[in-house]
């Protein structure tokens, strides 16, 4: 489930480009604009799906940030009868303990977004930094790192995730750490291969001959070049992290004190005879819908980012 997206993603990107036939436009844009500007103002070039994605994510972020404002009841308090259907008091009804579901959805958005962002940035930029350093230094360090990356990528991530999170105990921090442990390898690998090809460029050699220190070279020349690719990866990783968190929580391995969407699914499906009663309609459907919506939004954005930032990304990713 988790390793899957690399392959299908690659194929997807390529065919998306073919289908929309925008190769030509994008490459001309990429030539005229510098890379940082393309990051700053990509919205106008987003496709319709991409715009929907950005708007959707914005809505979810607003929901998470203003959760206390837009909800009446606290998510962890018993504020009504158990299993009330949606009505004027509780917009989406209540769960078996009488907690408001709309509040749980809003506060649950915080959980998914935090995990997604934290894992993506830690592993995206941490792994990226490791990859850049290894690629720049070369030699035994690089070889050793490549072995570690190979093994990390070959590990069956989800079964191991289950066992490790059971061992470390369920808490948000642990879930984040475990997910980082399993997702740093891809950005590291891509950053390394990019660095390897970049450092042979004449302008970098020239800069070094002028006495540029390694740190200056890495920071001023190599990092900005690798950055766009990392950004695209970060989105992909964040959606993996959200899926993995939801999956773990669904299995009952999430933080029991938090109300994430995965936890809601876990509670709802764990409720006896949920499928024989109408309760699933307001207890199970909202978190399910929100998770799918969030993942689709992220996917749309990531596809558009890939398309806009670097149409040749497919080749670089195709290891």
């Amino acid at each position: 489930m988790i390793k899957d997206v690399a392959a299908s993603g690659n194929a997807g990107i390529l065919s998306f480009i073919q289908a929309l036939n925008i190769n030509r436009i994008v490459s001309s844009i990429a030539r005229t604009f510098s890379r940082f500007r393309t990051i700053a103002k990509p919205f106008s070039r987003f496709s319709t799906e991409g715009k929907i994605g950005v708007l959707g994510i914005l809505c979810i972020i607003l929901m998470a940030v203003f959760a206390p404002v837009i909800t009446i009841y606290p998510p962890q308090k018993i504020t009504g009868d158990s299993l009330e259907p949606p009505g004027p008091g509780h917009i989406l009804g209540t769960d078996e303990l009488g907690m408001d579901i709309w509040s749980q959805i809003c506060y649950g958005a915080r959980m998914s977004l935090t995990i997604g962002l934290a894992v993506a940035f830690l592993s995206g930029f941490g792994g990226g930094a490791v990859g850049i350093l290894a690629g720049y230094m070369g030699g035994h360090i690089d070889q050793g790192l490549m072995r570690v990356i190979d093994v990390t990528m070959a590990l069956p991530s989800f079964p191991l995730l289950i066992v490790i999170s059971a061992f470390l105990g369920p808490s948000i921090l642990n879930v984040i750490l475990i997910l980082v442990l399993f997702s740093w390898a891809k950005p590291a690998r891509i950053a390394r291969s990019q660095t390897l090809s970049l450092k042979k460029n004449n302008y970098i050699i020239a800069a070094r001959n002028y006495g540029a220190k390694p740190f200056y070279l890495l920071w001023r020349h190599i990092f900005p070049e690798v950055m766009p690719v990392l950004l695209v990866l970060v989105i992909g990783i964040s959606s993996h992290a959200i899926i993995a968190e939801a999956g773990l929580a669904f299995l009952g391995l999430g933080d029991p004190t938090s109300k994430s969407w995965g936890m809601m699914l876990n509670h709802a499906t764990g409720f006896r005879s949920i499928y024989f009663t109408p309760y699933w309609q307001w207890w199970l459907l909202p978190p399910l819908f929100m998770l799918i919506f969030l993942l689709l939004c992220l996917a749309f954005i990531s596809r558009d980012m890939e398309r806009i930032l670097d149409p040749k990304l497919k080749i670089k990713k195709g290891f």
Partner: protein
Amino acid sequence: MVKDRNSFIFRLLSTLFVILAINFFLPRMMPGDPFSTTSADEVGEEIIVMTEEQRLYYMNYYGLDRPLYEQFLVYMKNLMTGDLGRSIYYKMPVSDVIMLHLPWTVLIVVGATVISTISGVVLGTLSAKNRKKGSDRIMMTGMIAFAEIPSFLLGLILLLVFSVYLRLFPLAGAVTPFADYNGPAEQAWDILYHAFLPVATLSLSQLTGVYLLTRNTLITVTTKDYIRTARAKGLGEKTVWIRHALRNALLPVVTRTGFMIGIMMGGVVLVESVFSYPGIGMTLRSAVVGRDYPLIQGILLVIAVSILICNMLVDKIYGKLDPRVVI
């Protein structure tokens, strides 16, 4: 892929070793021990708390009080002889527990692999043939959006729609409990009936990958010279597409199928949980909850080894199928 044979084998072996090490050390560092939960199985059942003496006896009986490295050596030795230890919860050899549940997992994984590969290839071919037409655009956008839904959420949706709302399929399990069958045909039907939704979930989640791969390779292949030659020879469209184009486009699909099994072995834990399907995924979940170390180790090992074997097989088969790849 086959270019660097030694590094490939090194990678397989080191991956296996890392898995063995994680497999062994992690469960032992989990908080709690298996004997604190042994007695609280069912709600309402009287909870028997073990005395310290009894606990120590069991720790000794299962060898859990010896130093870690000693346990590891014993573990490795036993592995070599095919002995995975005894499950603490089921009170029988781990290999027996796994053998009891593995067939169900194999059934749905193999079923899903076959179905998603075949339908992916067919749809991909159709899409490539109708390229630049509206139907291809629609099919592709739909498939891509579809691919982003993780398999267990997809499973939940299918379960809600087909089992809960339409009541077409069973809610849980792999067979009808306490059923009396009139002959094997009826039993087979019952098993297929229960396996339908899990298989559908897994196949749908893998379908897009195969579809896109087939479509894209076909599109690349059809620009090759030998396709033009085949057409120039006056061969029918059907022959050109199936014998000349598709045959060459299928190579990457073979590779993909092998990796797909690996991916599915990972995702199957969640999908089995959704459908309460009694495969090794469900068993892994209950083993983690019950802290059944030997069983967790065994199941992880089975999953990991099957993934590695698939990767190795793909490597071998690819060399056979494509003579251009030198082994």
